């Protein structure tokens, strides 16, 4: 048994070596939600890589939820953030409430997808940024590989926010890319409050594709003003989940 485990570990190292994931990819960013971090390959989101985020079926066109998710990740990485867009409909006060203050974000408005990807690659290559977010519709295997390599060489994390003008185009999302992970974030009804009003947003966070990892989906609370996700109370208090949380014994 231990022989098999050793062989497996050696093989993993070898694969990681072949993929050139020696330096930066070892660093990860934990979400701060143990239930989520536990299920990610290295206990968090691999830094210095390309990741994909898209909205759920209803949010594929506006990508509002996905933008908050990406902003939450970018907010918890040190350094300025480059946000590449083709249409300028982001509302900065909203992003600030997801943890990303205006002083940290530089926006680039590119005319088309090609120059958008070029800008993203430029940002990833630079190395001085904390994260690069790009709202891109079409992302081919070649383009994503370039971005992933650029991210790897500099150690900057790239987030491709997949956003389609027309939900029918979202079929493209099934195509493989070189991204490390692929997330789909969709809105869920929030927990009813005892008084009239709207509670904290709840998202269905799906890891649709992960290199060297397993896919899963879970229900989480949306970003707070520091960019952290939360575990909903009813999920956290379930016996199975509570068993895994040592803090609560």
């Amino acid at each position, binding site marked *: 048994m231990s022989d098999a485990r050793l062989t497996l570990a050696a093989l993993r190292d070898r694969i990681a070596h072949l993929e050139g994931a020696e330096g930066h990819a070892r660093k990860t960013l934990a979400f701060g939600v143990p239930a989520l971090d536990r299920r990610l390959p290295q206990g968090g989101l691999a830094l210095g890589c390309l990741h994909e985020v898209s909205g759920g079926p209803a949010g594929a066109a506006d990508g*509002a939820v996905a933008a908050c998710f990406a902003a939450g990740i970018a907010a918890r990485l040190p350094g300025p953030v480059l946000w590449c867009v083709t249409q300028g409909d982001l509302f900065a*006060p*909203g992003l600030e409430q997801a943890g990303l203050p*205006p*002083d940290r974000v530089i926006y680039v408005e590119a005319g088309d997808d090609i120059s958008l990807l070029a800008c993203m690659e430029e940002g990833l290559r630079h190395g001085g940024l904390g994260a690069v977010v790009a709202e891109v519709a079409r992302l081919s295997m070649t383009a994503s590989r370039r971005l992933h390599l650029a991210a790897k060489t500099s150690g900057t994390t790239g987030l491709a926010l997949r956003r389609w003008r027309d939900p029918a185009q979202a079929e493209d999302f099934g195509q493989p890319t070189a991204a490390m992970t692929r997330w789909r974030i969709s809105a869920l009804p929030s927990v009813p409050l005892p008084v009239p009003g709207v509670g904290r947003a709840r998202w269905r966070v799906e890891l649709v594709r992960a290199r060297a990892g397993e896919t899963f989906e879970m229900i989480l609370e949306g970003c707070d003003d520091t960019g952290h996700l939360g575990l909903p109370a009813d999920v956290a208090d379930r016996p199975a989940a509570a068993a895994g949380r040592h803090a609560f014994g």
Partner: protein
Amino acid sequence: MWPIDRLQRRADTPSAEAPLILAGRVGNRRVITAACDAARGLGLHVGMPVAKAQALVPDLRIEPADPCADLDALERLALWLLQRIAPIVAVDPPDGVVIDVTGADHLHGGEAALLEMLLGRLTLTGITARLAIADTWGAAHALARHHHGDAPCIAPPGATAAVLAPLPLAALRLAPATVAGLLDLGFVTIGDLIDTPRGPLTRRFGAELCRRLDQALGDAPEPIAPLRPEGLIEVRRSFAEPIGAAETIARYIARLVTELCAALEARGQGARRLDLLCWRVDNRVQTVRVGLATAQRDPARLTRLLTDKIPTIDPGFGIEIMTLTATLAEPLVPRQASSLLEQAPPDIAGLVDLLANRVGARAVYRLSPVASDVPERSVTRVAALSPDQGGGWPGHWPRPSRLLPRPEPIETLALLPDHPPKWIAWRGTRHAVARADGPERIFGEWWKRDAEARAVRDYFRIENEAGQRFWIFRAGDGEDRATGSHRWFMHGIFG
């Protein structure tokens, strides 16, 4: 109007109430060389004897004409344009400036936007300008001076002949005697000339007439010798054998940049704007302009910016001469590098320059708070390298992550005045409202805009049964029609 504008802009001139004319000498006579609008309204015109004008208008202001000063001022204006608009700018005396905007218009958002911006800035500085863009210098010259109306005029590419046809002969930059002779023969417009056989015209009026016509139509070349004021840092390299390969161009760009940086260093300056001019063997010029957000003289960085633009250079049959100019240079003092103890913040000026030269300087920006309750006015764009603002927006109320470019009307069913809707229909989809929060009342900025003296918006945050959250508002307070139309609008989507 240039000499008049120049005088009016001078601070020491008295107020522009009285009609103003400029007097110059033609032979023995003192005649009017320029007259302001007010003077022309009183019947004075250029060429009229000054004595007659004085007899017609008693309280006339007369200033001596000074063509040399006019030309100097025109050159200063051209230099200002050179630094801001395009790499090739030349003075077109007595009252014009010609700009080659090829390859420079996209930096300003297209030709129409460029003209609008230019007209606005010139008008603000007190210059009456008439602008035109055309395929050739001659055509632009003619259109700017003779097209109807004051609006800027853009001739569509390839339609030069059609645009020029209705213009008078004087638009062709001909000697007055030639124009008079042509008028005697019954030619009135340029269109009349275009269709006439050239032989007899040349025999009668000389080669100048057909040369000007060909230049206006683009059949004969008319290179623009760019203005190079004294003190401009320029490096230049001529090639014995014309070059054309991208690698060769890149190599020589690197050498030129090194020379330029040495020259800049000698003066303690850094470049804010660089112009690379490639003179081709067929006497055409290919230009590349790069702008920098801060003054720089790092050869590697400047070379990178210029070599990024090589695909836009069309070498044709080869490039003979390359010149590199620091059109706009600013003092650059060496700064102390950060200490070893604290980590230096990442330098993103280079990245901003790269991106700005790729997508245009206006498309790289940061957002900064404005003290306004109206959501669409609470955000403004500032330069990407502007200093940190320190603060953000007040966070009492949740704000959406996407704001629609303009509020979109929706259909709703709602109780007035304070209740959120039961359902909304937006873009053809009906959403039942499961939960709602509000109203958040926002008043119009009555201290800025009269139209908003009583305007009110009531914002609601609503969530549909699937969990999607929208930001909607009702124009008006729900009771008083004067505060708004009581129609509902979708304004944003929450994440």
